[in-house]
């Protein structure tokens, strides 16, 4: 993403007199149809909820209050910190972290392996890794669901070869959701790491080896620090979408393990009908993501100086 800020020598100013006209369409479209709606949503989070859906244009902190505090079933007990929604956020963060770690464990060796292939076959490997991404996420999640359900092919295979006695009950568990997230975003982890490893000069490894460093030491002390930007980029590309994911928890988690995405969706499309609360939860999610991204931007800046 840093490439877009134009720090190369090919930046020229030929089009600068008309640049306003060139940039205006994108500014207007995104500003009007995304920025403005987000600001409106921020406003909604401070409004009063209308009974059975909708909003009343009256200022109220009740959405955020409901998020943090439990005033009892009837709304009249003294406020106690309510952990329900905070737990949903924590659970989502944990699920997203789990998915990121899974992606890292599988993605790093894969990216490294591809980067060390001869030039011609590298493109083929990358191709192989990215093709599944082009398949609709819904379809990929559904096929994962089909695969791991109690009566699905995977359990049938394990039962037939005698690996297990009873079907592995994976569907509708937290692990299934993490598996789904991992499956959805794996290529996002592989590609940035690959880009980083590709730029690594393996001469360093040879020098270290001449100095009697073991391969493990080389990996840990030399390669990893160099590849760190790629790892961070990949982790963010997996972590952020996983935080707000909706499909995996819904289809694979049995709609019982609420994550942030399901919580928000339920406010608008489901039974709950509390718009200001949905808006508040969305704002909190957005803030979380922006904080993560800001850390990333700072880390990038530091790396480049």
């Amino acid at each position, binding site marked *: 993403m840093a490439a877009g800020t134009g720090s190369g020598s090919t930046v020229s100013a030929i089009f600068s007199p008309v640049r306003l006209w060139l940039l205006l369409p994108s500014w207007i479209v995104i500003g009007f149809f995304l920025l403005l709606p987000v600001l409106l949503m921020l406003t909604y989070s401070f409004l009063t909820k209308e009974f059975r859906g909708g909003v009343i244009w009256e200022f109220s902190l009740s959405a955020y209050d409901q998020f943090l505090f439990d005033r009892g079933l009837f*709304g009249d007990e003294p406020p106690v910190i309510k952990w329900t929604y905070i737990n949903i956020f924590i659970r989502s963060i944990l699920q997203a972290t789990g998915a990121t770690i899974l992606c890292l464990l599988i993605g790093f060796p894969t990216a490294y392996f591809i980067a060390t292939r001869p030039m011609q076959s590298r493109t083929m490997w990358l191709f192989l890794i990215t093709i599944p991404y082009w398949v609709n996420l819904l379809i990929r999640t559904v096929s994962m669901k089909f695969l791991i359900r109690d009566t699905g092919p995977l359990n049938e295979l394990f039962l037939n070869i005698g690996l297990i006695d009873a079907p592995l009950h994976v569907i509708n568990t937290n692990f299934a959701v993490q598996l789904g997230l991992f499956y959805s975003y794996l290529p996002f982890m592989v590609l940035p790491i690959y880009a980083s490893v590709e730029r690594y000069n393996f001469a360093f490894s040879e020098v270290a080896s001449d100095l009697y460093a073991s391969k493990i030491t080389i990996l840990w002390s030399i390669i990893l620090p160099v590849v760190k930007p790629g790892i961070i980029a990949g982790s963010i590309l997996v972590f952020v979408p996983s935080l707000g994911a909706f499909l995996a928890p819904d289809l694979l988690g*049995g709609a019982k393990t609420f994550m942030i995405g399901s919580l928000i969706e339920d406010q608008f499309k489901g039974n*709950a009908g509390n718009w200001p609360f949905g808006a508040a939860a969305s704002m909190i999610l957005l803030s979380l993501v922006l904080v993560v991204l800001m850390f990333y931007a700072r880390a990038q800046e530091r790396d480049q100086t």
Partner: protein
Amino acid sequence: MISKAFIGAAALALVANTAAAEGKLSVYHWFEYIPAELVEKFSKEYDVKVTIDTFDSNESMLASLKAGTMGSYDVAVPGDYMVEIMAGEGLLDTIAKGELANMANIEDQWLNVSFDPGRKHSIPYQWGSTSFSVNRDAYSGNINTTDILFNPPEQLKGKINVLDSQGEVMAMAALHLGIPQCSADREQLKSLDALLQSAKENWASFGSDIAKDVLVSGDAAVGMIWNGFSAKARAEGANIEYSYPDQGYVVWMDNVVLLRDAPNRANALNFMDFLLEPENIAAVTNYARYADGIKGTTEFLDAELATMPENNPRAGAGAGVFVAVCDQTTQEVYDQIWTRLRS
């Protein structure tokens, strides 16, 4: 440039598709419950293009209408208590006397219902019950108690699917505890909340549209489900038995309502007339495996429907109750309980 012309043409095509015109009908219907052939028949008879959108619970239908789709649909198919709620919210259009030619076909007991006295906004569609079904391969004990849902035996823990429908779940919970629906008594409400929180530990998933599939595929051993849907699951090979608990169960009636600001009001009324004809509504009944509220359908119905267990409560079962509409204060507490349950 060519691309400009192409964009123009495509835009025109899109707009033409979305513009309201003669010969259209937009229906908001429960998922998987109206046979496609019947819709075809209506389409041909009246020369109307029908589009059907689906929802999986009364509450999400209401949420969607309030979120901006009012004025896009002509008719919807809410349950009994939702008709009352919608009327209260001003979402329904009134059917004047005489606008529906086939009003006389409605069975007497369904004419003057508490949720729509005088049938000013709706016509009966299908009625049935909501309870739960148990897979007999997984459990052979007594299933005729709501304990199976709320306090299950060891073998069934973690294998229960519950409908994602606030009204029905809360009603079943109230029946289980033996307390009145929409009770304003604080202790009773607290016990309702406590029951649901503890029961949730043993539930595997919430889902209405997956209710049949989880029983057929074996993902769940117990599924809260509607009677006709359960009959379909049984027909697809699931070894399940529909339960009529001692504590009682939920009964419901789905109704076709005329929505306010319906873009094709005339076609909507034609559709409702069409569904009031015995032969047509019998087609729905045969497909959905429920029961209808129209006179003269017996000759068109499958013989099996009359005798199948899902349509015949056992002697000694508890009472079937309709979901009650609560006042705002109590409803807000119910909403709180539900949100706590679903989170």
